[in-house]
C-alpha cells in the first residue's frame, strides 16, 4: 500500500542544521537522493559529508530561497544531478520574537521573505515538474504558532498562519495531479504552559520532525495527510 521512498529525489531547504539537516539525513537513509540547500556554505559542507559518509547520495547548493534567481538555480542544479524532483521539503524558516511595538520593519520583512515568499517561490518552481510526472510531495514545515497566538509571536505567527492557508489552498489546486501537500505543525512554541523547560523530554527534537516527514511520505497512495500537529507528550517520568 505505502510507497517506498528509495530512488526518489528530494530538495530540503534550510538543511545545513537543525530540523532540515535531520530531515535530509533521514531521507538519505531511506534511499532518497537529497539536494541540501541553505544560505551559507559552511553548514552545508559538513551535512553533505555526513550523508555521503553514511552511504547516502546528495548534493549541496548554496541558495537564498527568498531570491527568485537562487531558487531557479537550486531547482536546475538538483534536476541536472538527479533527473527530477519528487519531494520538496520547505523547511527554511526565520523567527524573531518580540512585541509588535518593539519590532523592526526589517524583522517583519525578513520573516515574510523566508517563511512565505521563499515557500511560494520553491513551490512555484517545482509544481510544473511534479505536474508533468503526475506525482510529487510538498512538505511544509509550519508550526503550531500557525494555529495559536502568543505574546511576542505576532509576526512569526502571521507567517505560519499564512503558510498553513497557502498549503490548504495549494493542496486543493494540485491534488488532481497526484501531488500531495502536507503541513507539519510542530509545537515548538507552547503557549498553554508557562513552563518553558529545557528538558529534552519536553521539547520537540529535530529527529521527531524528521520522523514525522517520513511518516507523511509513507502514507497509502490514495490518501493525502494534509496536516499533522505534533507536540511532546510531556511525560517527565518516562
Amino acid at each position, binding site marked *: 500500500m505505502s510507497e517506498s521512498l528509495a530512488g526518489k529525489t528530494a530538495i530540503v531547504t534550510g538543511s545545513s542544521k537543525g530540523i532540515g539537516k535531520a530531515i535530509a539525513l533521514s531521507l538519505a537513509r531511506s534511499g532518497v537522493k537529497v539536494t541540501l540547500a541553505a544560505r551559507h556554505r559552511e553548514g552545508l559542507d559538513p551535512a553533505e559529508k555526513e550523508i555521503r559518509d553514511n552511504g547516502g547520495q546528495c548534493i549541496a547548493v548554496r541558495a537564498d530561497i527568498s531570491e527568485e534567481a537562487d531558487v531557479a538555480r537550486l531547482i536546475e542544479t538538483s534536476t541536472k544531478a538527479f533527473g527530477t524532483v519528487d519531494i520538496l521539503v520547505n523547511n527554511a524558516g526565520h523567527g524573531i520574537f518580540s512585541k509588535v511595538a518593539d519590532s523592526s520593519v526589517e524583522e517583519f520583512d525578513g520573516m515574510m521573505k523566508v517563511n512565505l515568499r521563499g515557500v511560494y517561490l520553491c513551490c512555484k518552481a517545482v509544481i510544473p515538474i511534479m505536474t508533468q510526472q503526475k506525482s510529487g510531495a510538498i512538505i511544509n514545515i509550519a508550526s503550531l504558532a500557525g494555529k495559536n497566538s502568543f505574546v511576542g509571536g505576532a509576526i512569526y505567527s502571521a507567517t505560519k498562519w499564512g503558510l498553513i492557508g497557502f498549503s490548504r489552498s495549494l493542496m486543493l489546486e494540485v491534488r488532481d495531479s497526484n501531488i500531495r501537500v502536507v503541513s507539519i505543525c510542530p509545537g515548538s512554541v507552547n503557549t498553554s504552559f508557562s513552563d518553558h523547560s529545557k528538558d529534552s523530554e519536553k521539547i*520537540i527534537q529535530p529527529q521527531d520532525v524528521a520522523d514525522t516527514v517520513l511518516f507523511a511520505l509513507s502514507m497509502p497512495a*490514495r*490518501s*493525502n495527510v*494534509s496536516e499533522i500537529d*505534533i507536540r511532546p507528550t510531556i511525560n517527565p517520568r518516562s
Partner: protein
Amino acid sequence: MSKSIVWITGASRGIGAAIASAFAAEGAHVILTGRDVPALQKKSREIQDLGGEASWLRCDVQLERSVNITRKTISKKFGKVDVLINNAGVTYFKPFEKTTVRDFDHVLATNLRGVFLTEKSVLRAMMKRKNGVIVNILSVSAITTFRNSSAYSASKAGALALSRGLRAEVRRSGVRVIDILPGAVETNMWDRKERKKYHAKMMQPEDVAEIVVAAVRSPKRLLTEEIVLRPIAGDL
C-alpha cells in the same frame, strides 16, 4: 504492539474492522466491539484464521452500562486496555430541516457521548499506569462545512473539542490522545449509489487503519495530536 490490548469500537465492518486487522497483524490482541454480533464473530474469525489474536464483545456505546461492563470484561478476561480506538459512528445525510430530534439524539449519543463514555471507562487505569493511547476516528467535517451533515458535523466537532480538552489534562500523565480526521472513506455509511459514483475518489478503510497504527506506534515522548487525511483524488 505485540501483546498490547487494543479495544476497537464499531469494529464489525468498515474502518473499525480494518483497524482491527491492522493491529492484529502487528501482534496485538484486538477486542472488537459493536452491536452486530454475527458480523463481530465473522470478523474475529477472519483475523484468527490469519493467525491473529482477536476477541469480540457486544457493546453499545450509547449505553453507559454496556460500556462499563465491556471495559470490565476486557480487563478481567484479557487484561488492561493499552489502546482504545473510538471508531463507532453513525450519520444521516439529511438537510437540517429534515433532521428529526431522534436522528440528532442518535448521532450525538453515539459520536459524542459514546466517546465520552469509553474514554471515561479506560482513563483512570491508563493514568494510574502512566501509559495508554486513545485514538478518536473523527472526520474532516469537524473542521469543514458540509451540507446535509449538520448533526454529524456537530457531533464530530464536539468530539474534537472533548479530545483537545482531555489531551491537555492527561498528557502529563503519559496518556496520549490522538485525533484522526479523515475525509471520505468508502464504507457503508454511504449508500450504494454514492459508493459507486465516488469509488475512485474515496479512501479505503485500510488507508485509515495504516495511519492509525503508525500514529500509535510513534515514540511515546512524541504526541501526534491531530492528523487531517484527505483523498488525494479530491473531495466528493
